[in-house]
């Protein structure tokens, strides 16, 4: 794909118009997951295991079914058998089979004429459990005496003799570690831990499902990707894919957590049994107990550095638990842990470990922040002990185009150096700090994503443009699609309407995930526009009686391409559209692909904070995000991604964590105790958008959604180190932990 962003002049791209769905969202009109209702609809509720690990001996729903208003109860017996692989994992997760595998695991569900009756009915379902030993900590789950979550879950990669809870094992690297460490003037080794965090989207999962005995169904739900929902639901229920039509609602946040299903197949199973539509809305405690938080990690890092700041060698062992199923993102952790730097001798070992916790789901740059915490913390410590500037040292080792990545290939054009230079030049970096204050720097990376993508554009009879895409708008992407379509067609931004199409309307689309929506749906929109423009030019050529090749498209008009083509007054898109019906029919354009030209995005953050030496509480004073966007289509929403990612990372670094009691139950399943940052915890978040164009996108776009959560974990930890003089190696940096460190209780 040709790119000449440096010379491209844009009319619409890079401006900050109002988002198309703004009015709906400030007036309460926008319909989110729980806002849908259907005639005759029942309400579903799910009974969840109070035990972290227990055999389900018996489920007796007689009393529940006898309650007036109860229309159906489903258990695992209502789901098909014989599934394998991830399909089985999802089925087992949405409804437990022989064992409840974590606190909150679904064991039965009820549909009733009201939400209250459904909840009352849950209390009448009698479940007999045999409680088993449980384990929720990743290191303990690998120990010889750990209870086995499930035999036979390990794949080919796990060497014989390892505990059955270790379900994947990976090793990668290159070079001669021993020689690399020998060449260093300073070699450090340290272990680090991060606790699981939740995406914390404010909208709980919600859906309305209808499924008939004929195997045809409809589902409305809040999701990042309705084709994923379709695939998972039909697999779990034994349906044909296209017989289920899934329509996404507006989505109240996802951050990766709404790329899978928890309640949707259950609503459909209840509907099939009750012959009526069924709505299920999760409560907040259900979300925290039984949706998909991220992994917790336990990591050992070793790095060597010369006196002048060159990293000579690095190795890391990464142990991550992904709940009661395989799937902790340790592959990404190992791939990206050292990826910021040019290191000849590098080695990674990864373990994917099962525990009695909910099945992890993607969370913004899944797998990357944990590794970044460990590696960027150690890099900071190396700089500190060698008396080196942390940004200069990063600049000395930073990857650029042509650098061989620690995971193998050479980098295409990337912007790490540009972010470091911009951070260094920012006034924050040289502002003096007061007592008990500290400054931390860290960089991070996300490789971004393409994925299956399908989009169409259609020209309206008045020359306006309708864009249909399959990636739900989770943060203003309708605006960026409309800007790209406006740019491609040369029509005003307000003349473009962007619709999120359901699964019955477009080909398959991967979710809004992997920072792909603006890149992939944007690319598809531009390519679909080009196809439609070709057709518009053809209509003009036919009218003028010249060859289509002799017509060019400029600023919304078809024009003869040069003096040889003949002299004709330009035809506007509206003029051509007005005659569509009589000149060959509707005009539209389509594009389908799995674009591979996604370019990764690097970012560098600086944080200033103050630690109360008597209580250990950290206050963020100032924060800067610098990140490469390739080309910012709508800069305000790019800044928004930077700021939101940074604040989620701050939360993960300071106060957010999954806390399990000795009984294996989640101790903090409400927002009171699962402490996401509130407005008064934060200062303004400064941003600098760096633009190193991505050659794989017609306008140079790089995804920007995920990178921003990667640097904050180490940046905050490095700042706390700067403030208190003690290195903290376990997140979150809660006041009790920080105070203990200050008091030397480590």
């Amino acid at each position: 794909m040709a790119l000449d962003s440096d010379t491209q002049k844009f009319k619409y791209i890079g401006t900050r118009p109002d988002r198309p769905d703004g009015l709906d969202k400030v007036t309460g009109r926008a319909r989110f997951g729980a806002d849908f209702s259907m005639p005759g609809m029942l309400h579903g509720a799910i009974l969840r295991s109070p035990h972290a690990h227990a055999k389900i001996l018996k489920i007796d729903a007689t009393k529940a079914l006898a309650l007036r208003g109860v229309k159906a109860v489903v258990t695992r017996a209502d789901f098909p058998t014989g599934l394998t692989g991830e399909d089985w994992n999802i089925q087992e997760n949405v409804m437990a089979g022989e064992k409840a595998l974590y606190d909150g695991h679904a064991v039965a569900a009820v549909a009733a004429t009201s939400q209250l009756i459904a909840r009352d009915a849950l209390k009448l379902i009698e479940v007999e459990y045999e409680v088993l030993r449980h384990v929720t900590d990743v290191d303990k789950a690998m120990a010889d005496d750990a209870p086995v979550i499930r035999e036979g879950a390990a794949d080919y990669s796990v060497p014989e003799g390892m505990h059955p809870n270790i379900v994947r094992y990976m090793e990668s690297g290159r070079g001669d570690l021993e020689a690399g460490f020998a060449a260093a003037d300073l070699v450090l080794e340290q272990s680090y831990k991060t606790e699981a965090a939740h995406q914390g989207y404010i909208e709980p999962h919600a859906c309305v499902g209808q499924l008939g005995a004929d195997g045809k169904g409809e589902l409305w739900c809040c999701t990042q990707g309705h084709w994923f929902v379709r695939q998972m639901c039909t697999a779990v229920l034994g349906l044909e894919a296209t017989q289920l039509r899934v329509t996404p609602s507006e989505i109240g946040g996802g951050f990766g957590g709404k790329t899978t299903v928890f309640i949707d197949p259950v609503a459909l199973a209840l509907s099939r049994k009750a012959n009526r539509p069924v709505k299920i809305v999760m409560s907040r405690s259900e979300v925290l107990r039984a949706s998909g938080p991220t992994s917790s990690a336990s990591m050992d890092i070793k790095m060597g550095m010369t006196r002048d700041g060159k990293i000579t060698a690095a190795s890391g062992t990464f142990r991550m638990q992904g709940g009661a199923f395989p799937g902790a993102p340790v592959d990404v952790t190992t791939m990206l842990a050292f990826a910021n730097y040019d290191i000849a001798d590098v080695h990674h070992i990864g373990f994917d470990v099962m525990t009695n916790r909910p099945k992890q789901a993607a969370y913004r740059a899944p797998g990357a922040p944990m590794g970044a915490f460990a590696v960027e913390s150690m890099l900071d410590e190396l700089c500190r002990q060698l008396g080196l500037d942390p940004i200069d040292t990063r600049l000395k080792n930073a990857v650029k185009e042509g650098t061989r990545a620690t995971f193998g290939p050479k980098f295409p054009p990337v912007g790490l150096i540009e972010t470091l230079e911009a951070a260094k030049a920012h006034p924050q970096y040289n502002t003096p700090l007061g007592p008990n204050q500290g400054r931390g720097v860290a960089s991070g990376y996300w490789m971004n994503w393409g994925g299956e993508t399908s989009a169409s554009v259609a020209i309206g009879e008045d020359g306006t443009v309708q864009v249909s895409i399959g990636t739900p708008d989770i943060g203003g992407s309708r605006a960026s699609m409309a800007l790209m379509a406006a740019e491609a067609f040369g029509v005003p931004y307000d003349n473009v309407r962007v619709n999120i199409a359901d699964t019955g309307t477009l080909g398959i689309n991967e979710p809004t995930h992997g920072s792909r929506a603006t890149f992939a749906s944007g690319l598809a929109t531009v390519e679909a526009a080009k196809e439609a423009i070709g057709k518009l030019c053809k209509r003009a050529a036919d009218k003028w009686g010249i060859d289509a090749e002799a017509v060019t498209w400029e600023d919304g008009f078809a024009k003869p391409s040069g003096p040889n083509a003949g002299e004709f007054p330009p035809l506007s898109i509206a003029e051509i559209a007005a005659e569509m019906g009589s000149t060959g029919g509707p005009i539209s354009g389509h594009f389908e692909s799995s674009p591979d030209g996604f370019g990764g995005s690097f970012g560098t953050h600086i944080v200033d904070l103050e630690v109360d030496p008597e209580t250990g509480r950290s206050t963020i004073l100032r924060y800067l995000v610098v990140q490469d966007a390739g080309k910012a289509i709508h800069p305000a929403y790019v800044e928004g991604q930077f700021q939101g990612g940074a604040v989620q990372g701050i939360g993960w670094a300071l106060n957010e964590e999954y806390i399990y009691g000795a009984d294996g139950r989640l101790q903090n399943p409400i927002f009171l105790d699962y402490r996401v940052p509130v407005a008064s915890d934060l200062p303004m978040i400064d941003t600098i958008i760096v633009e190193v164009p991505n050659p794989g996108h017609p306008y140079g776009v790089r995804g920007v959604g995920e990178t921003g959560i990667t640097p904050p974990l180490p940046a905050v930890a490095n700042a706390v180190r700067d403030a208190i003089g003690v290195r903290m190696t376990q997140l979150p940096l809660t006041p009790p932990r920080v105070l203990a460190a200050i008091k030397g209780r480590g």
Partner: protein
Amino acid sequence: MRYHTPSSFEDATAIAARATGTTRYLAGGTDVLVQLRSDVVTPDDLIDVKHIPGVKDITQTDDGGWRIGVAVAGAEMTEHGGLGRDWPGIVEGMDLIGSTQVQGRATLTGNLCNGSPAADGVPALIAANATVTVTGPDGARDVAVEAIPAGPGKTTLAQGEMVTAVNIPARGKNGGDAYLRFIPRTEMDIAVVGCAVNLTVEGEKITGARVVLGAVAPTIRAVEDAARAIIGTTLDDAALNALDAAAQAACAPIDDKRGTIEFRTEVAGVLAKRAAKIAYARARGEAK
């Protein structure tokens, strides 16, 4: 669940006295509704006290004290000028509970009767020697606030009894109070440690003091040793250190998701010192 809206305390207590199942009084509802929604407590009888005349009133009594109705919301206390001028610590304790939205509903009486050792509204009341009027089948009596909590989630109120007013003594001259709590964030958390200090001075010297700690024991407790550590002093460093030590010595906290024993103990000392300084400055007219 039956929902009642009695128009007098007599009717309210009569409903409660007759009840055979679980009974809850509803004022602000910020605890009751949370428990209801999460299926922790679904009362059989829910008695909404907000239809009883006078429950939304803050009134100054003849002796200069204050009487706070049981349905007065935190925001109403904060907006009331006179109460906050006399007892800033009591008002700021109440104000720390929950969000602006919660402040629109939550009440001091509810905070007390919820029985939480971490209740932010209660330590400053105890420090002020406040009482509550308890009305029951046998009439009304005044009880020290301190005597109401009986451990996490429990009170000493008998079935059919209810708190019908909070009574705060007259501030008097040369007095000041303060309440501080520790939470990990800046807002929206339950106190990990709370500390109220109420004191009076003559010139620079402290003549009387009450130091009350929250969230460091099964019930909120007044710490007499801590008060003794500063009475008779000018709150110099030695006094502050003695206060710190006495506060820490009085702690019998637990390790839980919100804090460790060590952390709670140390921070109790820190907060005691900080709250004492604020109360002292207020008593001396040097701060609001």
